[in-house]
């Protein structure tokens, strides 16, 4: 066996160190979530629990069940809506030229850079006038609208890679604008749908600010806000908080586990012509 060179050893040591630093908070989160209130006080956070219990998990779920369902509902729907609208926009902006289409696209691109904070007050006013304040529908609408620019950009760039001759062929074959989208572009769009979908799902799921200002009470409360509320005002139940955080992280992990394989394919799409 060849002995590894010193530089190799150094590299691996460094990598292990980074990995350790990365995994430490996660590890602490898991150990703490499995501890009793007694354990939390008597042990150091990184220590494993002396008498493991699922009690904090149940308690956290009890509090977060409704918000988690809320979040799942509006995140899934807003993701689907914004992806579809983005895909149709992308099709129009890349394959159907009209006067000022580049200008329209520029406005979409600018939309990506509008910070959340700027729109908060008009947003709350609009939502309350629409009667959508403190409702799941309001959150769906907000997140869909806010996601359209980035979705449009991603889909447009993907559709740019699809040769124009394909669209021209479909036109001479007799297909109209909508048929071309439904029969030609949509079936070729699985890669951008996965990429954009995961991106949208994560960003909507992780959103805190919109949820905070648009929801009161429990009715439409997103999980991100509910999680923040877990920290309490006088005493901190670290184990319940950690369990809540893990519940909150679960859906995103599941999404990545299911779609991870396609995600890499999606990122690679466009790099090599198919």
């Amino acid at each position, binding site marked *: 066996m060849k002995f590894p060179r010193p530089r190799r050893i150094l590299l691996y040591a460094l990598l292990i160190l980074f990995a350790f630093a990365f995994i430490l908070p996660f590890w602490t989160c898991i150990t703490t979530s499995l501890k009793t209130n007694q354990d939390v006080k008597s042990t150091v956070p990184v220590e494993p629990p002396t008498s493991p219990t699922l009690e904090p998990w149940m308690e956290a779920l009890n509090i977060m069940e409704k918000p988690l369902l809320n979040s799942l509902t509006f995140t899934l729907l807003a993701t689907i809506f914004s992806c579809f609208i983005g895909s149709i926009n992308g099709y129009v902006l890349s394959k159907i030229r009209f006067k000022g289409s580049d200008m329209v696209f520029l406005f979409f691109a600018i939309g990506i850079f509008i910070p959340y904070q700027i729109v908060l007050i008009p947003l709350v006013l609009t939502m309350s006038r629409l009667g959508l304040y403190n409702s799941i529908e309001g959150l769906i609408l907000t997140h869909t609208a806010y996601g359209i620019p980035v979705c449009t950009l991603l889909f447009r760039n993907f559709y740019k890679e699809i*040769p124009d*001759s*394909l669209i*021209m*062929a*479909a*036109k*001479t*074959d*007799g*297909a*109209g604008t909508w*048929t071309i989208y439904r*029969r*030609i572009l949509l*079936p*070729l769009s699985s890669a951008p749908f996965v990429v954009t979908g995961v991106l949208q799902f994560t960003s909507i799921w992780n959103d805190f600010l919109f949820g905070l200002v648009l929801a009161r009470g429990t009715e439409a409360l997103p999980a991100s806000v509910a999680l923040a509320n877990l920290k309490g005002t006088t005493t901190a139940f670290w184990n319940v908080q950690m369990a809540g955080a893990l519940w909150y992280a679960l859906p995103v992990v599941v999404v990545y586990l299911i779609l991870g394989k396609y995600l890499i394919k999606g990122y690679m799409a466009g790099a090599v012509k*198919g």
Partner: protein
Amino acid sequence: MVKVVIKNLTKKFGEVIAVKNLDLDIKDKEFFILLGPSGCGKSTALLCIAGLIKPDEGEIWLDNKLVTSPEHDVQVPPQEREVAMVFQDYALYPHMTVYQNIAFPLEVRKKSKGEIEKGVKATAELLGIPRLLDRKPKQLSGGQRQRVALGRAIVREPKIFLMDEPLANLDAKLRVRMRIELKKLHQKLGTTTVYVTHDQVEAMSIGDRVAVLKDGVLQQVSTPKELYDAPRNIFVAGFIGSPAMNMLEGNLVKKNETLMIDLEVSMFELPTWAEEKMKEAKESKVILGFRPEHISLAKKYQKNAIEAKVDMLELIGRELHVHLTAGECSFVAITMPTEDVKVGENVWMVLDEEKIHIFDEKTGEALI
């Protein structure tokens, strides 16, 4: 009767004029070729016929129906033109099988399942691809993709075929085979076809008539034979034929009532038939053109022959290409492989005087 009539067609892309005042009259059942170097506007013209591009000026009539006219605000969409197009990159739908690709135009037209199946089967049979129907385009070779693209065009029995360099992406051998098949297919179906290519050999071999374009301007429309025998200007003369026509600059002069061309290396006396045609010509700069196969080589001086030095010999199977120079100019002559010439030797090029061409140097137009 499916005619295509194009009147005064002009298309600009910004400042660039892609097609300029194009007039074409394509006859029923004709295999019509648009030929020219890349960027000459031939594809643009084709896309205008298909309705995929809106021209700036002019009219297009398909089958006695006005389909394009910016002046009258007429622009029939491609879906309603009953034209089928074959693209250079085939443009097959990558997510569909061969069957689905060929069936697509019928499905879009809401044909019944039975009709679709019958149509696809018959088309596949005609093109010899019934065994490929379940495959995806990715699993096909270039030639097979080409057939599928043709199938998709044929299946709905369009009034006109438009083909945009359909053979350009195939290797040389396959291209020759497919070109013969295309010609046969056209004879069988009799559909009016407009075919774009930059390959003059392809154009000459399959076209009933050929339109030569340069920089968006029509140069000549003729049968391939006429294009070769009587090019209307220097561009057509140089573009058609391989190796290209030999060109030699000179001055048209009149000496003792006979017309001659002073070629600097020698004097060339015009034959009677040419002189007849050029009675009115004034003394001016002209270009003498002659095809490589219309030269014979002589060892000794002959009247009207041009002395030249043999530079290089290329034996190409059944013919010998002799590269020669005279003064600053170089020439190619095609002779029998048995021709007795050596590199470095001085010979006299004797031109077939029936087959010479004379062009005006300034305008490029043919004078005889």
